C-alpha cells in the first residue's frame, strides 16, 4: 500500500466520517483536520515521478488503474487546500449536506485526478459532476433552479465525453491513455474527438458558450460550498482538457486542423474561445449587483486565462496557465469568504444596500483587499505573476490581438472588483449596519491564512512555480526556468525577466518612505463620515450619501447595447431545440411501434460506429 492508496482511502474515510459526525462541532473540527491529514499524505507522494495505485480492476479485459503524476499532484494540492479552508470556514454551518458534499467532492476529484485511463476518467468525471450537485443545492429556491440548469449542462457534457470515449474505443480498440498516441488517427477523426472531448470538458470549465450555468450554480449556495466550488471545481474541466491534449489530440494536431483553410486552425479557434471567455464573462460581472454573482462571473472569466496559457503550450504560457489555477483558487476562495462573511453579518450581498463596512469588519476588508489585488493581477499579490507569464507568452508568440483581449479582461476585472470593494466596504456606513460585528474567528482565521498564502506566493512565486514545473514535466513540456523570486526567460523570442522579491522590496520601501513623509507632517484628526463636503448641505444620519448604483454610468452608456449579444440567445436556441425534440419523442413514445424506432436508432449508431 503506497501513499496514493492511503490518500484515496483517507479521502473515502473522510466521506464516511462526515456522514456520521458532521452534526457536531467537534466532528466538523475533526473533519477539517482530516483534510489537513490528506494534504500531509499528499506531500508523501513524490510529485516528480508517477505513482501507480495498487487499486485497480479489470473490465472487458482492460485493466483500469489509478495513478498520480505531477499534474495530478498540483491539482490535488489545490483541491485539498480549498477543501481545508472551506471546511474551516464552514465550522459553524450546521447543514450536514454541506460537509458530506464537500468530502464527497474531494474524494471524487481525487479519483478523477488519479484516473489512469479513459474509462476511469469518464467514471470519475461523472462522479465529480454529480457530487457537485450536493454542494449546489444548499441555498434558497433559486439555487435549485441553478442546479437543474447545471444538471442539464453536465449531462450534455457527459454525453459528449462519453461519445468521444466510445469513438476512441471503436477506433483504437483500447481505453488506455496511450491508445490514440499508439494508433494514429486521421485528421477528421482527431477533429471529431477534439470537438467531443474538449467540448464536453469545457462545459465544466464553463468556456464560452457553455458558461451560462456556472455563476448562479456556484454563487447562490451556502458560503463554504461557494468557496470550494468557486476555487477549484470548474478547474477539473481544465485538468481533463489537459489530459485530452496530452493523450488524444496534441496542439500540433489541433494546429493542423484548419477550420478556414490556411488561415484559421482549430487551435486558433480555441484561443479565441479562451479570449472571449475572458472578456464576455468579465464584463457580465461588471454589471452584477450581487457580490456573489459578481465573483462567480469572474471565476468564469479567469478560466479563460488558464485556458489561454495552456493553449500557448510553451514554457511560460503553460506555466502561467497552471500557476493561475493555483493563484486564482486562493484569490477566489478569499473573496468568497469575505463576501459570505458580509452576508453572514448583514444578511445581504446586494451591493446597493451595503457600504462603509470597513469600520466594522476590518479583517474581512483586509481579506477582500488582498483578494481583489490578486484577482485583478496587480503586484505584489500572486495573481500578478501568473498573468505576467501569460502576457509574456502571448507577446513572444506575436499574438497582439489576443494579448489586447486579455488586458481588456484585466482592466474589466479591476473595474468590477473596485466596484465590489467600494460598494461593500467603502463609502458611507448605513445606519442599519452601525452595530454590525466582525465575522466570527472561525471565518476570519482561514481568511487571514489565505491572505498570507496569497502574499507569500506573490512575493516568492518560486514556491508555487516548483509545483508548476513538476506539472509541466508531467505533461511533457520543458519546465519553466524559475527561481525563488520569479522567472528568467533567456531563450524565448522576447526577453524580459521578473524578480518579484526586488519589485516588492522596492514597492514596500516606497510605501515606507511615503509613510515617513506622511506621518511626519502633523497628526491627523479623524472625523465622522457625516462631517463631509456636500456643497454646504447639512448631512445627517438619514441622508444616503453614497454612490453605488450604476457605478460605471459613463461606460455602461456605451457598452450596454453590446450585452444584447451575450450568449442567452444560444441557450434559448438550445432550449427550444430540446423542447422540439421532446415533443417529437413524446409522439414517438405514444406510437405503438416505438420499439422499431429504437431498433432503427441503435442499428444506425452501431453502423456508424463500425464504419
Amino acid at each position, binding site marked *: 500500500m503506497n501513499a496514493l492508496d492511503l490518500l484515496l482511502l483517507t479521502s473515502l474515510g473522510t466521506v464516511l466520517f462526515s456522514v456520521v459526525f458532521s452534526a457536531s462541532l467537534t466532528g466538523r473540527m475533526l473533519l477539517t483536520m482530516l483534510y489537513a491529514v490528506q494534504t500531509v499524505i499528499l506531500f508523501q507522494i513524490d510529485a516528480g515521478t508517477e505513482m501507480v495505485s495498487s487499486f485497480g480492476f479489470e473490465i472487458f479485459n482492460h485493466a483500469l488503474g489509478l495513478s498520480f503524476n505531477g499534474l495530478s499532484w498540483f491539482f490535488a494540492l489545490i483541491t485539498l487546500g480549498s477543501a481545508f479552508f472551506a471546511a474551516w470556514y464552514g465550522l459553524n454551518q450546521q447543514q450536514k449536506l454541506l460537509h458530506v458534499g464537500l468530502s464527497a467532492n474531494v474524494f471524487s476529484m481525487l479519483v478523477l485526478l488519479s484516473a489512469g485511463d479513459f474509462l476511469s476518467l469518464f467514471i470519475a468525471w461523472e462522479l465529480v459532476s454529480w457530487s457537485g450537485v450536493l454542494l449546489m443545492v444548499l441555498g434558497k429556491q433559486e439555487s435549485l433552479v441553478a442546479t437543474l440548469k447545471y444538471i442539464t449542462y453536465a449531462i450534455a457534457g457527459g454525453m459528449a465525453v462519453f461519445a468521444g470515449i466510445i469513438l476512441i474505443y471503436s477506433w483504437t480498440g483500447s481505453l488506455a491513455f496511450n491508445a490514440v498516441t499508439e494508433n494514429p488517427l486521421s485528421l477528421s477523426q482527431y477533429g471529431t474527438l477534439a470537438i467531443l472531448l474538449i467540448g464536453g470538458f469545457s462545459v465544466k470549465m464553463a468556456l464560452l458558450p457553455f458558461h451560462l450555468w456556472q455563476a448562479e450554480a456556484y454563487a447562490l449556495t451556502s458560503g463554504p460550498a461557494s468557496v470550494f466550488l468557486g476555487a477549484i471545481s470548474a478547474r477539473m474541466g481544465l485538468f481533463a482538457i489537459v489530459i485530452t491534449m496530452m493523450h488524444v489530440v496534441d496542439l500540433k494536431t489541433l494546429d493542423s486542423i484548419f477550420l478556414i483553410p490556411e488561415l484559421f486552425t482549430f487551435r486558433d479557434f480555441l484561443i479565441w474561445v479562451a479570449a472571449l471567455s475572458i472578456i464576455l464573462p468579465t464584463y457580465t460581472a461588471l454589471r452584477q449587483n450581487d457580490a456573489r454573482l459578481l465573483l462567480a462571473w469572474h471565476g468564469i472569466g479567469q478560466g479563460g486565462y488558464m485556458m489561454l496559457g495552456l493553449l500557448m503550450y510553451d514554457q511560460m504560457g503553460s506555466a502561467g496557465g497552471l500557476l493561475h489555477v493555483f493563484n486564482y483558487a486562493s484569490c477566489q476562495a478569499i473573496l468568497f469568504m469575505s463576501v459570505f462573511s458580509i452576508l453572514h*453579518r448583514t444578511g445581504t450581498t446586494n451591493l446597493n444596500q451595503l457600504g*462603509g463596512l*470597513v*469600520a*466594522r*469588519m*476590518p*479583517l474581512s476588508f483586509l481579506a477582500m483587499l488582498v483578494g481583489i489585488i490578486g484577482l485583478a493581477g496587480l503586484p505584489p499579490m500572486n495573481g500578478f505573476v501568473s498573468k505576467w507569464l501569460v502576457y509574456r507568452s502571448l507577446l513572444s508568440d506575436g499574438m497582439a490581438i489576443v494579448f489586447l483581449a486579455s488586458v481588456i479582461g484585466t482592466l474589466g476585472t479591476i473595474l468590477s472588483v473596485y466596484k465590489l470593494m467600494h460598494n461593500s466596504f467603502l463609502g458611507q*456606513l448605513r445606519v442599519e449596519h452601525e*452595530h*454590525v*460585528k*466582525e*465575522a466570527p474567528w472561525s471565518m476570519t482565521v482561514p481568511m487571514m491564512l489565505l491572505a498570507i498564502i496569497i502574499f507569500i506566493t506573490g512575493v516568492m512565486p518560486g514556491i508555487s512555480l516548483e509545483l508548476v514545473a513538476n506539472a509541466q514535466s508531467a505533461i511533457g513540456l520543458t519546465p519553466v526556468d524559475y527561481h525563488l523570486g520569479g522567472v528568467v526567460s533567456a531563450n524565448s523570442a522576447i526577453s524580459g525577466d521578473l524578480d518579484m522579491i526586488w519589485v516588492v522590496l522596492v514597492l514596500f520601501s516606497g510605501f515606507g518612505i511615503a509613510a515617513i513623509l506622511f506621518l511626519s507632517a502633523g*497628526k491627523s*484628526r*479623524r*472625523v*465622522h*463620515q*457625516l*462631517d*463631509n*463636503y456636500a456643497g*454646504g*448641505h*447639512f*448631512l*445627517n*444620519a438619514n441622508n444616503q450619501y453614497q454612490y453605488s448604483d450604476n457605478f460605471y454610468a459613463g461606460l455602461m452608456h456605451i457598452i450596454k447595447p453590446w450585452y444584447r449579444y451575450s450568449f442567452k440567445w444560444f441557450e434559448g436556441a438550445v432550449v427550444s431545440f430540446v423542447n422540439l425534440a421532446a415533443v417529437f419523442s413524446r409522439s414517438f413514445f405514444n406510437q405503438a411501434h416505438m420499439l422499431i424506432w429504437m431498433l432503427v436508432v441503435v442499428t444506425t449508431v452501431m453502423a456508424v460506429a463500425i464504419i
Partner: protein
Amino acid sequence: MKEFPVPVQTAEDPSVKKQSGNIFSNVFDELVRFAQSRSLFMLHYCTGCGAIELPPAMTSRFDMERLGIQPMVTPRQADILLITGYVSVKTLKRVILTYEQMNAPKYVIGICSCTVNGGMYWQSYATAKKLNDYMPVDLYIAGCMPRPEAVISGLRQLMEKIKIGEANSWQDYFKRYDYYLGNQQRLFGETWQTPTDIIGESKHYSLHTPETEGEHTRLLELHQRPLEPLEMRLGLSEKTEDR
C-alpha cells in the same frame, strides 16, 4: 454686549513673537510660514455682487496666481474663505458649515461693505450684518464693491500677516466657541447645529479654554448627537455588546 477683539490687526503684537532658542526650528518655522503665505488656496463663497470683481483679479489683468493664490473647490482644500457680499441668514448657515470644515490655519476675508456692517442691506430682515459675530474674520476689504486692486492689496496684507505669524484669528473660533455659537444660536434658533465637532477639535489643537464651552454649548449638547469618528473595530469589543 460682550467685548470682542477686532481680529484685524496691523500693528505688531509683541505677545505673538515668542522666539524659542532652537535656531533650526525657527528657520523651519519661518520657511513654513513663508510657504504658507506664498501658497493660498481660496474658496470663494460668492454670495453677493462683490463676486464680480474676482474674475478680473484672477485672470490676465491682475493674475492672482503670480502671488501663489489660486481658486479651489471644496472647504477641505482651501486656506482662505472669501465672502464676497451680503450674507443672508440662510446662506450664513452654509458659510459657517464651510468655515468649520476648512483646515486650519484658515483665513476669512470679507469683501464688500455688506460683510462689514450690512452695507446697503442694513435694514433687511434676512441678512446677517456683521460677519465677525459668527466667525473670526482676518481681513475686511470695504467698498461697494472693492476694485480688484483693492482685493489684491488686501490679499497681500494677509500674506504679510501670515509671513510674520500673526494671522491666528482662526484660533479664536476654538478659544471662544461659546461666544460665536451664542451669536449663531440667536440668529438660527436653539436647535442650530452643524455636523462638525468643534469642541473635540479645539481639544485636538489644545486650544480648549474656559470660554470654549459655556451656556450655549450646553444648549447644543442637549440635542446634538455626538459625531465621534467611526473607529475601526473588531466585533469582539465589549462596547458593541452593550449597545
